[in-house]
């Protein structure tokens, strides 16, 4: 009897612990999406595919130069920032409610067009990756994959996941600091609160959006390398991560940075617990049901203002 009770506690403790660690990783995946939505009211359906693209960038880099996977970020982050900046400037600034209005299209169409364009982008990225690489799963090799820190006889935490968790917290603090304390960050927040007034104050909203989108993809770059280090991935895996990111953002409230961490933790813990008690395939469906529930009951997110 005592034995049973002990294992029950260990199961729950393990679930909470690894769930939280998973949550940190989920938060990094979702920051970019949250930023994108928070600032530009743009739901980027290609977000998952950008993550995978970043993962492949790291893989390509490592095949040329055998360095530490963490060092690939030095190249991946600026490249992803540049892509984000350009995509926003060239494509996405042209598909907004305002842009649709200028073309004399109905507002409902204006709401749809960014979704349709980013959806198209998602297909193009996945197919492009398939054309350049192939459909075989790849992984970013590293020494930490199987390392764990033991906290007790039957309780341990993956070193890699712990590092990710720390990175997640640091990234969220940095992004939050950037948005609150720097000139550009304030401009981004102003533009997200009221683009018209911001324009009146002499801000170039197009440029502000492009910077925000660049930062969003830079965080996606970090997340992509993380994904590659913790599991194998394929060109078509983008949508799976988009759904995770979206789930995190829905749980935490669209556009909220702190919400992303809380949302990530909740989703991670629920998934791990569902997996522990109902088998591995319940992990996915448990997460989906949780997100659908929150969507139906509180679509603005659990922690939205």
């Amino acid at each position, binding site marked *: 009897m005592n034995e049973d009770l002990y294992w029950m506690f260990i199961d729950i403790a393990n679930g909470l612990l690894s769930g939280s660690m998973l949550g940190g990783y989920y938060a990094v995946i979702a920051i970019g999406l949250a930023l994108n939505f928070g600032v530009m009211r743009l*739901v980027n*359906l290609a977000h998952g595919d950008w993550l995978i693209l970043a993962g492949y960038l790291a893989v390509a880099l490592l095949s040329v130069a055998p360095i530490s996977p963490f060092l690939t970020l030095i190249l991946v982050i600026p490249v992803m920032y540049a892509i984000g900046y350009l995509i926003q400037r060239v*494509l996405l600034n*042209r*598909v907004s409610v305002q842009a*649709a*209005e200028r*073309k*004399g*299209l*109905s*507002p*409902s*169409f204006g*709401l*749809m*067009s960014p*979704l*349709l*364009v980013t*959806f*198209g*982008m*998602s*297909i*193009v990225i*996945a*197919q*492009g990756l*398939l*054309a350049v690489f192939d459909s075989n799963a790849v992984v970013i090799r590293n020494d930490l994959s199987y390392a764990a820190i033991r906290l007790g006889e039957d309780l341990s935490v993956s070193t890699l996941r712990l590092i990710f968790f720390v990175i997640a917290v640091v990234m969220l603090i940095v992004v939050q600091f950037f948005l609150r304390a720097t000139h550009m960050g304030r401009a981004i927040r102003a533009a997200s609160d009221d683009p018209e007034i911001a324009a009146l104050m002499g801000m170039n909203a197009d440029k502000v959006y492009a910077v925000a989108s660049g930062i969003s993809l830079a965080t996606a770059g970090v997340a992509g390398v993380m994904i590659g280090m913790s599991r194998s991935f394929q060109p078509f895996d983008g*949508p799976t991560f988009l*759904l995770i990111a*979206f789930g995190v953002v*829905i749980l935490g409230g669209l556009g909220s940075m702190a919400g992303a961490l809380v949302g990530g933790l909740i989703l991670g813990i629920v998934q791990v617990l569902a997996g522990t008690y*109902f*088998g591995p*395939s*319940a992990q*996915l*469906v448990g997460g*989906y*049901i949780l*997100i*659908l*529930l929150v*969507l*139906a*009951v509180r*679509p603005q997110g659990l922690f939205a203002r």
Partner: protein
Amino acid sequence: MIARIVNRLLSGWIGGGLLGVLVLVLLLLPVVLEGQSYWLHLLFTVFLFAVFGHAWNLLAGYGGLLSFGNQVFVGLGGFALALVFYYSPLDVWSSLPFAGLAGLLFAWLLAIPLSERLAGRNLWKPIVIAVALWIAYEVLVFYVPAADVFGSSYVRRVSILLLIFLGALPLLRLQGAYFAIATWLVAESVATVFNEWQVVGAGGGMQIKSDVTLRQLYYVSFALLVIATLVIWRLLRSRYGLALTAVRDDEEAARTVGVDIRRMKTVVFLLAGLFTGLAAGLYYMDAVIITPPAAFTISWSAYFVFVVVAGGMGTVAGPIIGAVIFVIIDRLLAGYTGKGLLVLGLASIVLMFVMPRGVMGIVNWLRHLGPDETAQTRQRWKHFGQVLLGVGGRSNSRALDTQPGVVAAFLVPGSPLPALVRDNPAWKPLIDGYESARKALAAAKPDVIVLYSTQWLAVLDQLWQGRPRIAGQHVDENWHEYGAMRYDLRIDTNLARACVAAAAEAGIKSRLVDYDSFPIDSGTIAAMGFLNPHKDVPVLIAANNVYHDFDTTRRLGEIAVEQAIAQGKRVAVIGVGGLSGAIFREEIDIAQDHIASATDDTWNLDILRLMEAGKTEELLAELPQFVREARADFGMKHLAWLLGATSGRLGPAKVLAYGATYGAGAAVVQFSVG
């Protein structure tokens, strides 16, 4: 010219004849193409994707519900067919209805929380019943393991829990991106269950080995397409269709005018489920093998989006045209490059930028290259000819008729009362005045009417009507007891667009309104009903932004006429609005209608006298006092419009009628121009 040809081709007996020939050719094709299964198969694919597109278009294009989860109907329809065919003695054709039924039932499940009876708190009852049934079933399975159709306790519990969840969550209430993601999540959840379910072959899938021939599939899918097209066409022409577009364009507004939004969404959702399920059944009869990862993949949504966007979202013909384009790109082009989806993805991004309204957008644009455009072209040729022959335009008396410029200007009442009660003797003079104005307007042969109505109130921007044709009924906010006013207006959208751009350039924030059934104000309806009853002349309608002052309005009038002249048009200017104002303080017998006070009367007559004398300077000097003391309609901004439109050269006027509309001053005035 082009517009006329396109219109001829698309309507009347020529259009009908062409359509009939097309259907006949498609019906005879299998006989002609005996043995050439490649082309038949391509057409079969076109038919199916047109049906898929119809379903998606019904949601996105008409319901405003952007779905990324229609693949759930594909998977359920396909697996329903496979299950019934495999486990029951029915043949494959008798199994097909189950594919549609599966889609329909699942759509119904998702729509349950929207229904009237289950709104809000009543939902717990069906949930309790469902949970009770579930427990009973678990007990049954415990004693009789054979009763478990799910094969394993995990799949059983997850499926039932998921069904209860989906039946209870009001997912259809979500909008925009939320709805898109929610439908996608639903499809993914169902897919995870199918991946585990032994009965459907777990992840390995099932086979539908039947003896159907391509020719059978061809005819059945063609029939399905024809039926789906007819059903949707009928639906859109019914009351439902109008309500549906209203919901899409503005859900809040639609709710306030009493459209039952839940019912509308349920109807389109059920139809989408049914059609997608049936088409999926046909698709898998041909494909033979069905696996959960392939049947529930998000790629289906990518196809549907492409089909509808390429053809033209929100049009009946759009998905059919889109399906043709889709098959050409996916099967023919991709056959050479091997990169079907890549080409498709790129094409859909490019399409969104180059022709966001798809092929049908271009067709509609061609159709609306209205007479105004033709007139403009004719004008240019005439001018060209004059230059060539060395004949001065002005010396040619016939050419005078076609010289661009302001050819007529009128001030007409803003009140709709004379239009609503035409047999009231008190308003007879006004009605006669309108009639004289109509004749004068027709004689001036304008190419366009530029109208400003004080009754169309705008707050945010300067609004310009931009829908090519707008028709319907309007009940005046104050005079609803006198019934509805019908209207049918032809708008000069080219001029409206030019005005939006020019006004924005002049620093007046402008916006085009291009919505179905956007409310038209009573003043405009009355003026157009009297002056342009057969809509011979297209019209430009500008709104009265309550924050714009007299001078801004004057500038707007100027801009409108500048743009019309730039387009080579002869312009009739109309300002809609009354004279002295009146507050409904006391009941007035409309048969004895009179100006509210003697002071108002004096003021009105004074102003009209200055107009008749053509003393614009004095008129402008007196205006502020008149506006203040006689509470004149919206600061007489309708006069500002006329002044601007004639660049301040408002000639001596002829007062065609002066009278009262429920105490307020009203006059029909014709100004001489030039």
